[in-house]
């Protein structure tokens, strides 16, 4: 009974989301009729090369798309409420409180002219109606939670006085400050050193498990996602081309693109061998037509792949968008 309930009421459900460039830039599709769902406490990853639309997707959920893009259709349901049609004021009540975002570059994502403390407490002041003292107390607690000691010192410092890893921890602290149910993390570790990357990811995973916090983790690095995610979605040219549990996607790969991504990851067992790459590049927005978008770069494509667009075929929770999905096990 509980299993069914869980499936029926996901925390976040995106339905046929369509994001286009503004008309003056050509109106091209950036995200095409994309659907996904995230359960409470689940860590879902989205992988893809740059240009596949994963960032646009993450921004569209909270309506933070830049001026050149717009969400033209689709539904976003969060906690059984439609948040895509909310008034700005109500949406602001959700941002930072129930859904928080973490961005890629903590140096530019934080305001260089404001103290860390201010940037931490302002969210809490707004959403939780705390007094200044209460907010500062909580801020210190949060900093400790994300692994930053000497909180009181830190609160009075400016972003440029911290290292990259510390800044990202601060961003995480800000994201956690009002106890959200979902965190959308757009390439949170890409701008960091490798050693720091692992720490940040560990931190996120730990918090997710402890607080039953759902995370939508976006990265071009499948290695990162493989460590963290319960489920993984692979995006290409604005569409999901494969999705399923991490196990399914990584080890029972069905889509040639996913296979290509995996092969091109430098891992220990490939030491000494030539690293494979996927030839070609992501097709520009203007060239995405009505056939399989991966055709040109696909090593196993056949002429009839050009006939029409493949749809997402699901089988036991593992879906793929391909006419001739791979069947061999890795």
């Amino acid at each position, binding site marked *: 009974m509980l299993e069914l309930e869980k499936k029926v009421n996901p925390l976040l459900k995106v339905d046929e989301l369509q994001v286009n460039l503004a008309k003056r830039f050509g109106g091209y599709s950036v995200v095409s009729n994309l659907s996904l769902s995230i359960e409470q406490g689940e860590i879902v990853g989205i992988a893809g090369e740059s240009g596949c639309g994963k960032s646009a997707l993450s921004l569209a959920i*909270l309506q*933070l798309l830049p001026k050149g893009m717009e969400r033209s259709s689709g539904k976003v349901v969060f906690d059984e409420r439609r948040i895509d049609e909310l008034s700005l*004021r109500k*949406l*602001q*009540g*959700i*941002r*930072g*409180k129930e859904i*928080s*975002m973490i*961005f890629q*570059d903590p140096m*530019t*994502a*934080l*305001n*260089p*002219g*404001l103290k860390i403390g201010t940037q931490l407490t*302002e*969210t809490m002041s*707004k*959403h939780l109606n705390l007094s200044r003292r209460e907010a500062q107390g909580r801020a210190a607690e949060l900093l400790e939670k994300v692994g930053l000691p000497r909180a009181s010192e830190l609160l009075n410092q*400016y972003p*440029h006085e911290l290292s990259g890893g510390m800044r990202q921890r601060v*961003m995480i602290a*800000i994201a956690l400050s009002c106890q959200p149910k979902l965190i959308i993390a757009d390439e949170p570790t890409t701008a960091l050193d490798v050693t720091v990357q692992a720490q940040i990811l560990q931190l996120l995973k730990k918090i997710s498990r402890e607080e039953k916090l759902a995370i939508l983790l976006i990265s071009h690095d499948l290695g990162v996602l493989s460590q963290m995610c319960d489920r993984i979605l692979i995006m290409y040219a604005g569409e999901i081309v494969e999705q399923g549990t991490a196990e399914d996607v990584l080890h029972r790969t069905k889509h040639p693109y996913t296979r290509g991504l995996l092969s091109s990851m430098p891992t220990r067992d490939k030491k000494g061998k030539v690293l494979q790459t996927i030839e070609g590049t992501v097709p520009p927005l203007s060239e995405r037509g009505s056939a399989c978008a991966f055709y040109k770069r696909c090593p196993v494509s056949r002429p009839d792949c050009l006939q029409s667009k493949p749809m997402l075929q699901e089988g036991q929770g593992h879906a793929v968008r391909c006419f001739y999905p791979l069947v061999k096990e890795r």
Partner: protein
Amino acid sequence: MSYMLKRTSTLLITFLFIVLLAFFAFRIIPGNPALSILGPEATKAQVAALEKTLGVDRPLGEQFLSWFANLLQFDFGKSLRFGESVLAMIMERLPVTFSLATAAMLITVLVGVPLGVIAARHRGGIADFLISVLSQLGLAIPSFWSGILLILFFGLGLKLFQVSGYVPWSESPFLWMKSLFLPSLAIALPQIAILVRFLRTAIIEQMELDYVRTAHSKGLGERAVMFKHVLKNALIPAITVLGMNYADILAGSIVIEQVFALPGLGRLLINGIATRDYVLVQGMVFLIALVVILVNFLVDVSYRLLNPKIKLK
């Protein structure tokens, strides 16, 4: 470090340059200064006596040094025309010019900042266009003409303000403000235009930065984002502009004091120049140079202080 050195050296050179210019300008005038002051009917004895007082019989270098030495002791000499101590005359008129400049500065900031914010917020829209048009006009209209127009309209037409003269604070604070309102408005108009243009650009630049998106993602409203985040960062470089504004305001008050017949330093300077009272003019130019240098210096220091990235240790 080398930046401060550069700036200080520039300021010092400016200062020296102006001071030397002021001093030697009158000494290079062809003809006898004493003669031109006393007029052609003066007797030889009178001319000689004045020459002695002026010290023009001594070598130029000596004259300069003794003048400068006196200056440092706050002795600006005696006005040729009025016979009074130059310093006393300056101090008498200082409050007028100072109030005028301060009022103009206040108007500039109080009107300029909101307009800049509005223009940036409604970028490309009607409000922005109108503000842009007004800015262009503000820059093109000569301040003395806007002063005259203000007199025409508000003074004579609507009879709301007096058309000339100054009422000291001690007499009546309300009338004091009234007597300063139109003149400071006339001075402020071009400065508002400059500030608005700068601020608009600065705000727009800030709004393109990533931290604004983060702020929105935290659920902060438009007002909070603009005032707590963007404006704070945009105002820091605006300080430099305000510094320039202040120098321009001082310059503007020279002309405006003529328009509104205010007994300030500007008028004193013009009178001094017209009557070739060069002792007076020298002293005043020295003072003006000093003020400009000080303002520039203060602007530099406060910019560095306010910018968290380069706080002076």
